[in-house]
């Protein structure tokens, strides 16, 4: 509930005052706030799809974005080019509108038409089901790939894995490229990642993984959404250094993995476990565990 109020304080007054009067049970249930130009504010979760009477204007969308990026486009220009920003607390704000394209790449989104504020959550214990797969008989962590479609709780799962392994005397290093796993703010994580976890915040994975291996002597590196060719090279560094890697990728099945950029890595048997998540019984449902 504090997260909700925290985010509310960043919204324009005209939007905020409509949301401040919501009952507590609605607030605690909300996972996303959707703002669309010319439409009602929509609050959503797996069990809820509720509208608020206020109709969002284009000006309010601009003011909301300005507030969320602290009036500093330059500080978030790379994120904005990808269509989202991550704000304090690790919450992701997706942005839609008119893409400004330069050299075939989107560099900015202007004329914002909608935003999706997704709350980052901490669910302690959500990785307990897969805990037996993550550590071998020798007490060493195993490289694991978590596969799921969007919204199935990959990042929440990774967060809890960090906490769980860290509590089991394993040195954990988190390469948090988009500041979503740890939600670092003023040098502190917004979530409990355990007593033996170091976080490298905002660094591209390829570079960050190398830096962590060299400087933090981790037993395992945790990072989110591996997929680019540069990331594969970093993963190979983990392999040659004897450091386990636990990471995630978008996908829904083994077939989708075979078509992905990380197929060469899969073929080497680098990942000892591949865990598929689904939403069947809510986000974080473990659909299948495949032992590499």
């Amino acid at each position, binding site marked *: 509930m504090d997260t909700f109020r925290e985010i509310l304080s960043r919204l*324009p*007054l005209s939007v905020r005052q409509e949301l401040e009067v919501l009952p507590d049970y609605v607030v605690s249930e909300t996972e996303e706030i959707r703002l669309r130009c010319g439409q009602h504010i929509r609050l959503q979760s797996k069990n809820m799809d509720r509208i608020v009477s206020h109709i969002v204007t284009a000006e309010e969308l601009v*003011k909301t974005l*300005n*507030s969320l*990026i*602290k*009036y*500093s*486009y*330059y*500080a*978030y*220009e790379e994120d904005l080019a990808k269509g989202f920003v991550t704000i304090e607390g690790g919450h992701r704000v997706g942005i839609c509108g008119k893409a400004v394209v330069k050299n075939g790449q989107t*560099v*900015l989104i202007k004329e914002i038409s909608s935003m999706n504020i997704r709350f980052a959550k901490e669910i302690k214990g959500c990785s307990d089901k897969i805990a037996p797969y993550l550590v071998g008989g020798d007490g060493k962590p195993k490289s694991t790939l978590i596969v799921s479609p969007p919204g199935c709780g990959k990042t929440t799962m990774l967060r809890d894995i960090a906490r769980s392994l860290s509590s089991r005397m394993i040195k954990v290093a988190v390469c948090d490229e988009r500041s979503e796993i740890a939600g670092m703010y003023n040098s502190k994580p917004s979530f409990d990642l355990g007593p033996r976890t170091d976080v490298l915040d905002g660094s591209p994975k390829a570079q960050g993984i190398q830096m962590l291996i060299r400087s933090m002597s981790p037993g395992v590196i945790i990072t989110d959404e591996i997929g680019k060719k540069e990331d594969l090279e970093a993963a190979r560094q983990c392999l040659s250094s004897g450091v386990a890697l636990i990471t995630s990728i978008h996908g829904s099945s083994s077939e989708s993995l075979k078509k992905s950029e990380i197929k060469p890595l899969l073929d080497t048997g680098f990942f000892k476990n591949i865990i598929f998540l689904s939403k069947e019984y809510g986000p974080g449902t473990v659909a299948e565990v495949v032992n590499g």
Partner: protein
Amino acid sequence: MVKGLLIICFVAACGLLGSVKAWELKERIVLLEDFQKMILLLKGKMNYLREPITTMIDAEAKKDNSRAFNLLDEAGTALREKNAEMDRIWVQKASEIYKGAYLTEDDMELIIYPGKFLGQTDWENQQARFDFLEKRLQQQIDSARQDYRVKGPLYRKIGFFAGGLVSIIFI
């Protein structure tokens, strides 16, 4: 004796007026240099740390009590409280804080200029605008120093001289 005292007082008063005028020229340099210091700090922080504006303001604005840093502090506060546009806030706060200051119209244009670009573009453009502002500010500071060098002593001398001349004629 009374006449003598009157002459002395009158000459001193005119001399003081001349000194005040010279002091205004000095004050212009101080204000411009203070603003330049603030701008260089912002530019450096942005360049090195890529911190958002409100974060930089929180860290730096209260370290100095000068007009430029007060402008930074008040603009940051107003941004957060009113959730308004930077250009409007900056112009409003600059006009309030520099009201009555001994600055030319060109000086004030430069003081208002950051409101037109701060935080509103990508990093490359921010740096380009800062470079332009730095260059123009330096030109104004150089011009203000030249003014003070030439006109400062002149105003002081004229003050005393005029005071002496008038008192001789009328007293």
